[in-house]
């Protein structure tokens, strides 16, 4: 292919790699809430990491949107990868993991205050979607101190493993091969080279891609052993226009994963919010997330889910099957075991020692100058992002308890309004208006005067 073709260094899990994103399309994945086409976070990428001791399997969603010939990605890796250490998997598995761990909206309906409590709950689950990608040919060069250590074709990808002595050599090599490098790339490459990092370059093999019959690129996977438990994000921040979103799903044996060089913060959860949020859970969640990012001075990593993979409550989606887990690198579970379609709400008898942590990071170079360094803790307590709607009882209840119940509602609605305003930064008056329109009225119910209640019947007669 001609060098004049504009190649774009793009981030497969742009966190890991992206050097430029000059293609018209913007990387997107992340999650949708309610309707599947509601895009919540732009420029988002997803990566799943299985980690056990030094063993690591990284699955990077390929969310490239644009011409296939424009796709290419550079991923810093700690070791030279052999062909068997590289794999291609299905989007559906990452989508499933995304859905299983997504923040959820639940609703409860107040019971007739005069009757026994009956509760129903409903989980609304976000879903995810994936996108497309593409790439082009490159030629290898030698005289620049860049060695093409190995070349493989895996699935629809042509892969090269590069070793470099000098960052300027590597930068020149990349430029000669048609990559556009933003300012500052050489410095970052130099830092990686001095730390003994290798570079994994992937592009699309058009023939193989056509043979798959798919219109998108599948996630790339790499398996390796390294004491480094980290995610390289520095290249990706170089020319990013504004902030990028990253969702990291950690699959471990021991417990929750957190970052050691940034603060990991649990998002507010379990709060009661006005019922009208049901119509637009997406904007609620996005506003709340942005508010929390601000609150932490834009420097925190957020925990969205941390749970034993055996169960969920409420379930936004089934836990992953053993086959799916194995595909993501969880080598210690047996394959072909269980079948999907069940919703285990309690720990299952044959526990599959898998703990999942979902981290959400909104980052740029100013606030996240260093790559994300992780640590697996022994914490196995469960956490989920869960937001609660409580529908007031609308039936015609007639008893003292009902009167008290109705009198208590305005206070409860006010507290929900304030919670929502605090979490999202939305205007409290707008919230109250929306609540009034959707049947959550702040007006005190009309009450008979105390003397009427005392002598009501007598007075009529008298």
């Amino acid at each position, binding site marked *: 292919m001609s060098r004049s073709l504009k190649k774009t260094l793009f981030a497969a899990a742009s966190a890991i790699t992206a050097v430029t994103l000059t293609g018209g399309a913007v990387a997107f994945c992340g999650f949708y809430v309610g309707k599947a086409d509601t895009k919540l976070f732009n420029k988002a990428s997803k990566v799943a990491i299985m980690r056990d001791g030094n063993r690591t399997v990284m699955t990077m969603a390929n969310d490239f949107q644009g011409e296939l010939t424009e796709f290419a990605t550079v991923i810093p890796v700690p070791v030279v990868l052999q062909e068997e250490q590289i794999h291609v998997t299905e989007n559906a598995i990452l989508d499933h993991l995304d859905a299983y761990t997504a923040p959820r909206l639940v609703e409860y309906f107040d019971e007739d205050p005069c009757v026994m409590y009956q509760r129903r709950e409903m989980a609304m689950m976000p879903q995810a979607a994936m996108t497309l990608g593409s790439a082009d040919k490159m030629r290898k060069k030698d005289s620049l101190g860049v060695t093409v250590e190995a070349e493989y074709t895996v699935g629809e990808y042509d892969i090269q493993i590069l070793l470099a002595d000098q960052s300027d050599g590597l930068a020149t090599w990349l430029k000669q091969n048609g990559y556009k490098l933003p300012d500052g790339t050489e410095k970052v490459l*130099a*830092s990686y080279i001095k*730390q003994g990092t290798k570079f994994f370059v992937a592009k699309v093999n058009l023939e193989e891609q056509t043979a798959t019959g798919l219109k998108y690129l599948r996630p790339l996977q790499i398996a390796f052993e390294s004491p480094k438990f980290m995610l390289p994000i520095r290249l990706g921040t170089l020319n990013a226009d504004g902030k990028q979103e990253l969702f990291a799903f950690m699959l471990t044996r021991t417990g929750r994963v957190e970052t050691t060089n940034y603060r*990991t913060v649990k998002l507010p959860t379990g709060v009661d919010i006005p019922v009208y949020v049901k119509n637009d859970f997406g904007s609620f969640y996005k506003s709340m997330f942005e508010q929390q990012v601000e609150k932490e001075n834009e420097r925190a990593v957020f925990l969205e889910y941390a749970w034993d993979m055996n169960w969920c409550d409420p379930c936004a989606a089934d836990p992953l099957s053993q086959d799916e887990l194995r595909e993501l690198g969880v080598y210690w579970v047996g394959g072909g075991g269980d079948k999907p379609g069940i919703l285990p709400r309690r720990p299952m008898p044959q526990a599959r020692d898998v703990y999942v942590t979902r981290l959400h990071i909104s980052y740029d170079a100013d606030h996240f*100058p*260093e790559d994300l360094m992780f640590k697996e803790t022994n914490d196995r*307590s469960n956490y989920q992002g869960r937001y609660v709607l409580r529908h007031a009882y609308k039936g015609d209840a007639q008893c003292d308890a009902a009167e008290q119940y109705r009198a208590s509602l305005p206070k409860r609605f006010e507290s929900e309004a304030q919670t929502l305003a605090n979490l999202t930064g939305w205007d409290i008056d707008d919230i109250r208006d929306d609540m009034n329109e959707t049947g959550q009225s702040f007006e005190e119910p009309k009450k008979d005067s105390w003397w009427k209640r005392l002598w009501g019947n007598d007075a009529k007669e008298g």
Partner: protein
Amino acid sequence: MALSMIKDPRIYQIVTLSGLLAFGWTAHAFEIDPIQFAAIVLASCSTQWLGSILIATRPDFKSPLITALSLTLLLRADAVWPLAAAAAIAIGSKFALRLGDKHIFNPANIGIVAMVLFTDAAWTTPGQWGTAVWFAALLAGAGLFVTYRSARFDVPLVFLGVYAALVFGRALWLGDPLAIPLLRLENGALIIFAFFMISDPKTSPDGAIARAAFAGGAALLAYLMIFNFYIADGLFYALAIMCLVRPLLEWADPAPHYRWGDPVAPLRGIRKQKPLTKNSVHPVPAE
């Protein structure tokens, strides 16, 4: 008595660590269950009491309180028992693991190392401190230094100086922006460790040169473990290793043992230990 109370830097440490804990608590900077805190204090103090009875001395609860506060700030667990166990190991080690007339390990440090290394019930959270708490810890540490500069609080300065030099040196060598080493130093656990753990005069060498070697060695070991071997808890392992090496350093640079409230040993100061008097603040080696 009042004067000796003020002279004893442990009072200052207890006050500032409690303040830090209260601040972190109210600012929701870290999650600490009050029951866990109570269990740590109870386990520390009761172990101290038991140990004192066994060696027939009057128990002093200042040291176990500092250990309890450090453990509360630095160690996490889902349950109560791992934290109580860490406290018991910490204080128990002062009585059980001794060489000559000093205990070998820094109490809170060995409590953390034992639980992290040998159980899977507890963990440390090196990154979980917001800037505000970090700054408060730094102020508390600086205050400690200013107030007790006459005592041997050169250890945190040597430790932080060497560690910072290594982290900045690494960034310069790699050509990284200075925001990266600053990010690494803006770590609450590091500051607490430097000012309230490794600084413990009872488990650092008495000679000034040996003390500098001890603090510098710990910084170098911690740096190597964290940046070259990617061991997130390197800080704590480094101190435990240096405590094992300490007798060697003390042999090379002998000096009289520190007693709480003593002024610092002068550089190259090798002077005869004063005979203990009845009013000595800390006549018992087990504290």
